[in-house]
């Protein structure tokens, strides 16, 4: 049994909120540069050049890449031999978010009630996802999620007879409907299987996986590659102005499911696909 002070979680969450918003992950930077190299449409090249200049400015000047610094999605993989001490874990995470968004000059984009609205003023509460794993360490990942892209996400409960073709059509249909709204070139997280809620969680987790790491199952790795190519034939292009670069990455995560179903969720992210992790 290892004891971890919740204050440590607060400190790590604060730091990750700030860093995730200022530094675009290398895999995402590389994917944008690859798109720029492959792009043959003039207006699209210009947009991609500006997107590259933008994340370079953010990194150099330590300012947010995008003004939508997101809802703080905090993932914790907690070793089962860990015992948290010194306070409440949820409170500690929210305190980290509160400090990170204040000290990092990040935008406070959270309202206290979905219908009655009212900004909470400190970007809390975080969306917290916990998972119990082996060992005695804790992996903390902060993925600030913007809502221009979140709003273009979709979920569908397919009949098993819809098969693989149903999934493929749904991905293309969702990207088509999203069009210019989610700030393409986008990243696409696909969750297939599980239950209604687990499919959505898988889709969000798919966006946390580096986009240069394929699914370990060759069947899904091939599907990721095929669907990314198909998405990039839609012609939507960077910002929707036309071009090849509609998406920079497409990750699929799966779970077993029920004999009667085939849930599929698609979580869309923009080119500012942010996440940063630290192991305690």
């Amino acid at each position: 049994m290892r004891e971890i002070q919740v204050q440590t979680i607060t400190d790590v969450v604060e730091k990750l909120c700030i860093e995730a918003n200022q530094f675009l992950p290398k895999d995402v930077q590389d994917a944008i540069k690859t798109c720029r190299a492959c792009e043959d449409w003039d207006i699209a090249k210009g947009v991609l050049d500006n997107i590259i200049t933008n994340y370079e400015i953010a990194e150099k000047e330590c300012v947010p890449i995008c003004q939508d610094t997101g809802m703080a999605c905090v993932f914790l993989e907690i070793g089962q031999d860990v015992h948290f001490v010194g306070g409440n874990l949820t409170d500690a995470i929210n305190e980290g978010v509160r400090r990170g968004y204040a000290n990092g000059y990040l935008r406070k984009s959270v309202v206290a009630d979905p219908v009655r609205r009212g900004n909470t003023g400190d970007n809390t509460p975080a969306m917290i996802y916990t998972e119990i794993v082996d060992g005695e360490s804790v992996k903390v990942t902060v993925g600030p999620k913007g809502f221009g892209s979140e709003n273009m996400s979709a979920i569908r409960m397919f009949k098993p007879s819809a098969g693989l073709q149903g999934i493929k059509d749904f991905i293309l249909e969702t990207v088509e409907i999203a069009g210019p709204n989610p700030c393409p070139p986008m990243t696409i997280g696909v969750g297939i299987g599980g239950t209604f809620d687990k499919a959505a969680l898988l889709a969000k987790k798919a966006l946390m996986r580096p986009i240069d790491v394929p699914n370990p199952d060759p069947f899904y790795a091939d599907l990721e590659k095929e669907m990314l190519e198909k998405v990039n034939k839609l012609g939507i292009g960077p910002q929707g102005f036309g071009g090849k670069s509609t998406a920079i990455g497409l990750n699929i995560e799966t779970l077993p499911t029920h004999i009667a179903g085939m849930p599929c969720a698609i979580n869309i992210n923009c080119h500012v696909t942010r996440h940063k992790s630290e192991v305690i």
Partner: protein
Amino acid sequence: MEKRITLPLTAELAKTLKAGDSVLLTGTIYTSRDAGHKRMCESIAKGEPLPFDPTDATIYYVGPTPAKPGQVIGSAGPTTSGRMDAYAPTMMSVGARGMIGKGARLPEVVEAMKEHSGVYFGAIGGAGALLAKCIKSAELIAFEDLGAEALRKLYVEDMPLVVIIDSEGNNLYEQGRNAYLAAHNE
């Protein structure tokens, strides 16, 4: 080639802009998002004055991050314009003509643009650090309680924009994509 334009956006100036034009915009613009638009449209319905003169005005759909010490403004890229579709025709009916944002607009907004010589400009979504460089001054003028959604008066210089929908209703989202597909499908 980029067209340099200076505000205010008169009807004459608006009519010279065509979908697909790259422009560098200089002048005074006003920031507003969902909550600010809702309040302004309520004021218009009651016949009350707006916090700024809407005549020939350009509104930037943005909620910036807080300025760090020494900065004029924080990161300031466009938000999704579709959320302002419910309010944009009302804003144009009182004289506002330019809109800066990103993403698709509803047909009723395009119809109002044709009627009032409106122009919808796109700024690059997700390029907030870059766009902040064009903002030379920022002043909070109303709705301070809305935080990031408060109404600000900005002075911008050479802000890089693309005309997405022009005053005749031509739409770059359709034209650009169709042109790309036509050039790539043998």
